């Protein structure tokens, strides 16, 4: 018997499954493709594609740059920067100036992620950090909505439509109209508003308009075992509760703005959501409720961003909610 064997010694287990971090990131990108394609098609290639590409390029570039500055191994291959860039790009308005996604990507990666120590260490969702920085710094650029005329709601807006070439006008979003004139006014402009919101035929951010396609992407991730349904469900419960308390249509609150994108793709971000189940219920509920309160009472028409960022900060606390310990509690009664 050959005693020259060089045997590898490691502690158990000696098997691993095939799931890896880059594979998960690729699935998320795949899940975002339907809504991305719709956004590009609906708002027009020229007004959207460059924004998305610049955003993804910016997050990748800034991540590589940060790795160099902080002397860390190059981490762009894990794919998380692509997800952040895509999420940020999809949450910008069509026809955003070219520097908007670049600055946003830098803020997302540098402030939102690398400053905390890179992947897995950040407290706040990087894409939302980038978006929040842009929204606070350049509110006008972040809330000027260009859209093809059939879905133009500008007849109500006093400022009127500013036209840009053939068929493109600026217009308020449904949430903006409701904020200024109330839900009835919106209903007058578009009697099928809920249906259009569901399909995605409304002004809004590039990747946030189609509830249907966002849900398709979410269901794909759920089927792949990548996301749980718990955070989105409790998010919608929280948002609906506030809508009902405020005398608004719960369905409209869910379908409009970035609520579906936020609940399904932003609040479910692994790194910045709780790992405790009980914590996740509260996290979803809180993020949805805060978004509702901001929509109802805040200065901004949309509250999804700050709702999730606020709850991000509470994650370390929420993770202290452990499940019932195995063999303690409930089951003791059963034992004689």
């Amino acid at each position, binding site marked *: 018997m050959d005693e020259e064997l060089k045997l590898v010694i490691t*502690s*158990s287990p000696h*098997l691993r499954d095939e799931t*890896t971090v880059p594979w998960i990131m690729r699935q998320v990108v795949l899940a975002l493709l339907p809504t991305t394609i719709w956004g590009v098609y609906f708002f027009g290639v020229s007004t959207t594609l460059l924004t998305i590409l610049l955003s993804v390029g910016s997050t990748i570039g800034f991540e590589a740059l940060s790795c160099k500055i902080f002397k860390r191994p190059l981490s762009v291959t*894990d794919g998380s920067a692509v997800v952040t860039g895509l999420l940020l790009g999809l949450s910008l308005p069509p026809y955003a100036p070219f520097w908007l996604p670049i600055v946003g990507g830098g803020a997302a990666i540098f402030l939102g992620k690398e400053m905390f120590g890179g992947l897995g260490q950040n407290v706040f969702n990087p894409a939302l950090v980038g978006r929040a920085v842009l929204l606070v710094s350049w509110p006008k650029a972040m809330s000027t909505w260009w859209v093809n005329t059939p879905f133009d709601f500008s007849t109500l807006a006093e400022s009127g439509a500013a036209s840009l070439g053939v068929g493109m006008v600026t217009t308020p979003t449904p949430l903006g109209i409701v904020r200024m004139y109330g839900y009835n006014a919106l209903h007058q402009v578009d009697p099928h508003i809920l249906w259009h919101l569901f399909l995605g035929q409304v002004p809004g951010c590039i990747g946030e308009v189609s509830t249907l396609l966002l849900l398709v992407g979410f269901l794909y991730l759920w089927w792949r075992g990548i996301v749980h349904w718990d955070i989105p469900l409790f998010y919608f419960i929280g948002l609906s509760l506030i809508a009902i308390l405020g005398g608004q249509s719960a369905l409209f609150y869910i379908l409009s703005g970035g609520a579906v994108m936020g609940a399904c793709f932003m609040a479910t971000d692994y790194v910045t959501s709780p790992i*405790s189940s009980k914590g996740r219920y509260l996290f979803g509920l809180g993020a949805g409720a805060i978004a509702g309160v901001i929509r109802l009472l805040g200065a901004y028409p949309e509250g999804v961003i700050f709702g999730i960022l606020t709850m991000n900060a509470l994650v370390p606390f929420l993770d202290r909610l452990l499940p019932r310990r195995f063999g*303690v509690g409930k*089951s003791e009664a059963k034992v004689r």
Partner: protein
Amino acid sequence: MKLKTFPGGVHTPTFKELTAAKPIKEFSLPSRVVLPLLQHAGAPLSPLVQKGDKVKRGQKIADIEAFISAPLHSPLAGTVAGVEDYFHPLLGRFPALIIENDGSGEEERKDPLSNIESKDPAFLREWIREGGMVGLGGAAFPTHVKVSPPSGKKIDSFILNGSECEPYLTCDYRVMVERPSTILAGLRVLVRACGAERAFIGIEENKIEAIEKFSKLVKDLPFPTQVVPLLTKYPQGSEKQLVFSILRREVPPGGLPLDVGAVVNNVQTSWAIGRMAEEGLPLIERVITVTGDCLKNSENIQVPLGTVLSDLVDFCGGWTETPQKVVMGGPMMGVAQTSLQVPVIKGTSGFVFLNHLYEKKEYSCIRCRRCIDACPMRLFPTMLGKFAEYQAFDEAKENRVLDCMECGACSYVCPANISLTHLIRLAKAEIMRRSRKGKANG
């Protein structure tokens, strides 16, 4: 068929097709055996024989006066060559009795056991201990201890564990398929010894043939016995998970199934006990699976304890490619070996030879929750792993790290390939060390 199961766990490839259909082969008596003086969970043994003594097959050769221990018997007739430090599959090196085969084939057998149901349970427990019986699933906990309910605790259910949830291993399956009546003879002894009113036989549903065989045979038993098909999921064979799956009872932290009125034993333990009842032979042989992706012939083999691994490799025809790793037990909880000189001990369920090792890049934890969903004990492995890394042992303890049974499910699923089980093991060891030190100082 309604399958019972437990929350958490993982679905691994089973790799059982390598050996599942292969009948048990008998390994002829080797020229010498190496018998470590610690083969069970408990106190090490003292030899009862000296260098130069003649011993018979089945003769008791080592024992100790301690409740949590089990004596050792010689698997062959021969001469004691001495007590030496020798390779041990779990402990590195440990003193072992070495016996050289003299070819005489002399035997010492006990009287077969009849009228099991009329025997006194206390007598049966002592009889089990004298047979050197320990759990053959891998943990090697002395069987007589498991069937001794502490005063004031009533055992109502006996569970025979035929899950064999570790990938690659098929020895329990083969014993169930080939020797079911001996297993049931052992079951009668065990049920009588612990005073249970009813029995369950839990078998994963990928072992259809075993389920069918037992379903027919259990009708003849003198107590109600139910064959329970279980979902094929790792770690179904873990005691706490098995008790939960079948009885919906949770064993408390740090407790035993006894605490919830149950006793669990492995099917092969039951076979060994049944064999002693029928043939009078104590635990001197067991069935193991020798398998892997680089072995010429993977086999299920009945081997004498103390057989050295290199002899088993020869028995299997050597390997097709040089193995990178040799694991005693299954690949999920088994221990990587440093040498082919290790002997088979009571807790050896098999050896797995691996050439193609996993290659997976390590990343930072992305908090994906896969380890939490996989943990059958409802722990947060990622959190415990971080506490271990930061040496925050008090926090680890507060977060129940001692509930971990090191099944390996968390490391298996981690997409960032973080060795969570290893980190948790370190934290547990350090906490235990400190608590022993604390006791010693107090």
